[in-house]
């Protein structure tokens, strides 16, 4: 026979429908969001993971200064290092031989000519001829007649042969010496002297691109930089979200995300490099899932950067310089990061040596596994799902505790019934099962409904969030086992065990204890003496003490919500702050990095701009997890990229107090470094490190940087005094040829992080704030309900005694109001501290620095929003108190 107690469950559900509705809504929302996140995640990841195969994603790419010769490509395909030394010796010897031969011939000619001239003059003088004109004529005739024979004779002489041999030998020795010196340095720098080098064969694809100015609205102003590839590319192909590939020279397909941001669509026209094109396709390149213009960019920029596709002839019509990018693929696929890193290192060596022997230069080298544009999105999607799941579990645990407190309360209320049932023969486990039924049913229902929503509405919502930020290909639907486990099994386990522990513990007592309502696990000691406050204040204090477990759960909930509030308010504030301070974060309005300090004529690159000031710069790496202070970092393990600046004496842009090494405030804050600490920086492609002792901190939040005067910089990095890396300038420099400028950084570039992130999260963050208010209200509602239910009898009694509803409200609502207010403030402090910590941890795993910032008004609003949530609940509480009938006390039959 079924346990008759089961009949109580539907009745309980009907009687307490508000409570269960709140809990179910709460759980459905949480589980739905997480389920949607996972289903969206799995669907997106399935598409992203299929991309490399379907769209032939490269394993890496390199860019050369000029188009590679077929020989270079053939040699690179073999993946072996070139014998640079032999090549340069051969080349040097050949050049030397030519020069020596030329010099010998010139010398011989000169010597023989002189000997003939001298002999003719002597003969003329012997015959008494002194007229110079006649002597000249005689000499010319003799030269014409005898020179060739004389030269031939001289060439055959022994002395001449010996001299020639010596000259060649000397020249060859010098060539070998010069090449050896140069080779030693290069080989050491790139570790090229490796014995037993294993070649890494690759298949190479041409993947040339051009960069042009894009004018989205045809107003003549540049709106973005567009990187254009050819439509017939065999590598790194695009998926079309809408439309098709261009078929005529006046058609173009552009990135979907960028098009959306620019308000452009199929059929619209845009100007590229001064020519108008009709947009016929919106695409997503497999290697540009995020629009990172450069791999070192902190953030992608789908507003100011675009990737596009033109027909090959359309591509050829453009006038901007061609970037000779070559993509490669390994014949054997691997996902092993270590193997990929090893292949990458070996390939780089092959590339360095082969370009040297084929007279070309590497502009860029990027293995795919390090490419931000293709790896940022999947790693972010992965990270988001994990974070959301953890947040979901925290909330479900809070709900489970609320449930446990509610059940605890019910058991206390039903003590005599439980005592009677136990006395009548009901076993403890039967009662445990009975009281466990409701949380299990509610969780199952919440999980079921949550999953349904997760697979439908929330999946679409979550995916639209990603599609708002990333250039993702069209996505299919994938069933997610992870979603089922993480959104159903884990919450169910959490709810089950938390409640089981509480219920089993409570039902351990003997039936008699239940019958006597003696449920205290420890005997009550004498009441705590309260300060001589007014009676009402002491009354409230007693209520507060009575509900400490509820308030503890509330504290966790409030801290959690405040943490989220800090995120919701702090992220836009931090972004805006970064954007606002972008110009302050620049040393100068313009920072020009030059390709070299000398032009093609070996002249120093000068400018007439008066505010321009030279600086030197070098990028080194700082080990994240092994710095001077032994700080543990939680990042990817990759080293931090640090720019070391050499600053001019009496610089107008960076002021260094005295000699020594200074670090930026961003560097200092990120790693907790200060004056007196030691740091060790090392080269990326060389086994060389530099130790510095920090002399002070320069107030510069823009980047993780190190500063020293230019003289020290030159000494430290073995650079000539007149060598430099670029110019700081307050005004635009117009007299340096663009081909010599590597990059120009302005405050707009610094602010693009802000623009992008605000676009990605701006609208969602506002909704998120209101969701948090609702969450806060729901949590407090559930806990405040327990407090009032627990005191229902006393409330009824004081009503009988003549207390007015307002007075009762002030007795039973105000303690919670005070606690919620205190918790909101303390919870904010805790949430803020936690957010600072989390932000730091996140920053440690990334290059660069971004300070978490909250405006004072946001801090106040974080607390006020939660209090608004509570205010709603207190109104409900007031009406709940008002509704408690006096019968509750009158019908008390113990």
């Amino acid at each position, binding site marked *: 026979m079924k346990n008759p107690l089961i009949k109580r469950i539907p009745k309980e559900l009907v009687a307490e429908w508000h409570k269960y509705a709140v809990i179910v809504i709460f759980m459905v929302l949480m589980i739905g969001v997480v389920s949607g996140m996972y289903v969206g995640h799995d669907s997106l990841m399935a598409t992203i993971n299929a991309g490399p195969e379907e769209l032939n994603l490269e394993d890496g790419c390199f860019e050369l200064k000029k188009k590679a010769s077929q020989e270079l490509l053939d040699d690179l395909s073999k993946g072996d290092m070139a014998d640079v030394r032999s090549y340069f010796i051969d080349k040097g010897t050949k050049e030397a031989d030519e020069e020596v031969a030329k010099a010998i011939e010139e010398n011989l000619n000169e010597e023989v000519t002189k000997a003939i001239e001298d002999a003719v003059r002597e003969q003329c003088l012997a015959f008494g001829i002194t007229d110079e004109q006649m002597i000249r004529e005689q000499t010319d005739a003799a030269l014409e007649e005898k020179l060739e024979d004389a030269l031939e004779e001289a060439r055959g002489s022994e002395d001449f042969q010996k001299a020639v041999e010596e000259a060649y030998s000397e020249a060859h020795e010098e060539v070998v010496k010069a090449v050896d010196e140069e080779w030693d340095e290069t080989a050491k720098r790139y570790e090229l002297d490796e014995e037993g080098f294993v070649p890494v064969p690759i298949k190479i694809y041409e993947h040339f691109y051009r960069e042009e100015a894009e004018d989205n609205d045809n107003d003549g102003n540049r709106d973005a930089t567009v990187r254009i590839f050819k439509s017939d590319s065999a590598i790194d192909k695009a998926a079309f979200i809408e439309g098709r590939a261009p078929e005529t020279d006046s058609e173009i397909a552009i990135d979907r995300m960028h098009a959306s941001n620019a308000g452009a669509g199929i059929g619209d026209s845009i100007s590229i490099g001064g020519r108008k094109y009709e947009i016929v396709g919106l695409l997503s390149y497999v290697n540009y899932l995020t629009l990172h213009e450069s791999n070192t960019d902190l953030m992608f920029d789908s507003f100011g950067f675009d990737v596009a596709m033109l027909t090959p002839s359309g591509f050829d019509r453009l006038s901007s310089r061609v970037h000779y990018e070559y993509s490669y693929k390994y014949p054997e696929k691997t996902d092993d990061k270590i193997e990929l890193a090893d292949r990458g290192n070996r390939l780089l060596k092959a590339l360095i040596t082969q370009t040297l022997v084929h007279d070309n230069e590497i502009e860029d080298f990027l293995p795919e596994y390090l490419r931000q544009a293709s790896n940022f999105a999947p790693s972010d999607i992965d990270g988001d799902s994990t974070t959301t799941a953890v947040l979901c579990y925290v909330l479900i645990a809070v709900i489970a505790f609320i449930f446990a407190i509610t059940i605890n309360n019910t058991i206390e209320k039903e003590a005599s019934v439980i005592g009677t049932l136990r006395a009548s023969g009901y076993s403890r486990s039967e009662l445990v099962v009975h009281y466990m039924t409701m949380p299990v049913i509610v969780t199952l229902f919440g999980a079921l409904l949550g999953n349904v929503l997760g697979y439908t509405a929330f999946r679409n919502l979550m995916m639209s969030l990603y599609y708002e930020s990333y250039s993702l290909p069209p996505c299919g639907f994938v069933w997610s086992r992870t979603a089922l486990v993480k959104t159903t099994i884990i919450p169910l386990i959490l709810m089950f065990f938390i409640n089981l522990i509480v219920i089993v513990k409570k039902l351990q007592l003997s039936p008699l204890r239940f019958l006597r309502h003696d449920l*205290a696990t420890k005997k*009550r000691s004498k*009441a705590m003496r309260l300060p001589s406050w007014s009676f009402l204040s002491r009354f409230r204090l007693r209520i507060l003490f*009575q509900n400490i477990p509820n308030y503890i759960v509330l504290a966790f909930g409030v801290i959690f919500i405040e943490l989220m509030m800090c995120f919701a308010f702090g992220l836009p504030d931090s972004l805006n702050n970064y954007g606002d301070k972008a110009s302050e974060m620049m040393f100068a309005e313009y920072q020009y990095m030059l390709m070299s300090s000398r032009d093609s004529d070996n002249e120093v690159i000068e400018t007439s701009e008066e505010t321009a000031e030279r600086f030197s710069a070098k990028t080194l790496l700082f080990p994240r997890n092994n710095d001077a202070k032994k700080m543990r970092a939680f990042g990817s393990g990759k080293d931090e990229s640090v720019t070391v600046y050499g600053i001019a004496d009496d610089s107008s842009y960076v002021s260094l107090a005295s000699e020594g090494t200074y670090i930026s405030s961003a560097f200092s804050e990120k790693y907790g470094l200060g004056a007196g600490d030691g740091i060790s920086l090392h080269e990326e492609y060389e086994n060389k490190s530099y130790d510095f002792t920090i002399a002070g901190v320069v107030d510069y939040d823009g980047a993780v940087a190190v500063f020293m005067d230019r003289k020290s910089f030159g000494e430290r990095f073995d650079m000539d005094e007149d060598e430099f890396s670029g110019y700081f300038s307050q005004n635009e420099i117009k007299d340096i040829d663009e081909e010599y400028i590597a990059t120009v950084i302005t405050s707009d570039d610094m602010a693009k992080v802000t623009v992008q992130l605000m676009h990605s999260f701006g609208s969602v963050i506002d909704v998120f704030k209101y969701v948090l208010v609702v969450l806060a209200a729901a949590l407090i509602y559930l806990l405040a309900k327990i407090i009032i239910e627990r005191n229902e009898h006393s409330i009824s009694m004081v009503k*009988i005694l*003549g207390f007015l509803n307002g007075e009762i409200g002030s007795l039973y609502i105000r303690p919670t109001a005070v606690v919620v207010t205190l918790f909101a403030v303390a919870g904010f402090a805790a949430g803020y501290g936690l957010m600072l910590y989390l932000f730091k941890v996140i920053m440690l795993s990334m290059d660069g620095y971004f300070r978490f910032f909250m405006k004072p008004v946001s801090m106040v609003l974080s607390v006020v929003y939660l209090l608004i949530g509570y205010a709603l609940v207190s109104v409900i509480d007031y009406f709940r108190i008002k509704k408690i009938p006096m019968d509750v006390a*009158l019908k008390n039959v113990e």
Partner: protein
Amino acid sequence: MYVEVSNVKKSYGEGGSYVEVLKGVSVGVERGEMCVIQGTSGSGKSTLLNCIGGLDDIDSGSCRIDGLEIAGLRKDKLSEYRRDTLGFIFQFYNLVPNLTVRENIEVCRYLTKDPLDMDELLETLGLKEHADKFPSQLSGGQQQRTAIARALIKNPKLLLCDEPTGALDSKTSRDILILLEKINEKYGTTMLIVTHNNSIKNMVHRVIFLKDGEIAKHYVNETRVPARELEDL
């Protein structure tokens, strides 16, 4: 009459579950009198007490307390009436569990501008040494005395007691009744006591018997017996 109840009718439920609990009850109690309302279970005695206490409204009739008609009063006026005029004592004490004895008494002291002296009351009721204990740390008698102290602290003109000794043993019951008697003498408090106990009627001034919602018997007790001499409690 201090308490004047005229033709009070009260019913609950509708249709098949309709029950007429009071069928036109009329009764009066003089100021300073102790009055017992007796009757079997379901006779309407507690309902009558609740109607007089303004806890339940009446269907028809009149219920005047010290000249104030409480039938039809708004809820806030009823609260005012209870706080100014009444004291309540229940069978199961109805103490606030998380307040100490002193604090429970203070609940009602708060409601009046002219309360009795707390210490004197604690002394009188033998609660002085328990003043800082919670109800769960007290015996039934001590809890009931706390409930009485809570009712008396505001020196009510009318004390309504619903089975005040119903949950107590014989000795404790006697102590409580002696206490009520003493209070009646000392403060002249009018008391309406609903009880099953047949002996209590001997100590009061007036006795009302209810049966099936009607007054079965109503008389003034001319031969009062002091509480300490009551038998079969």
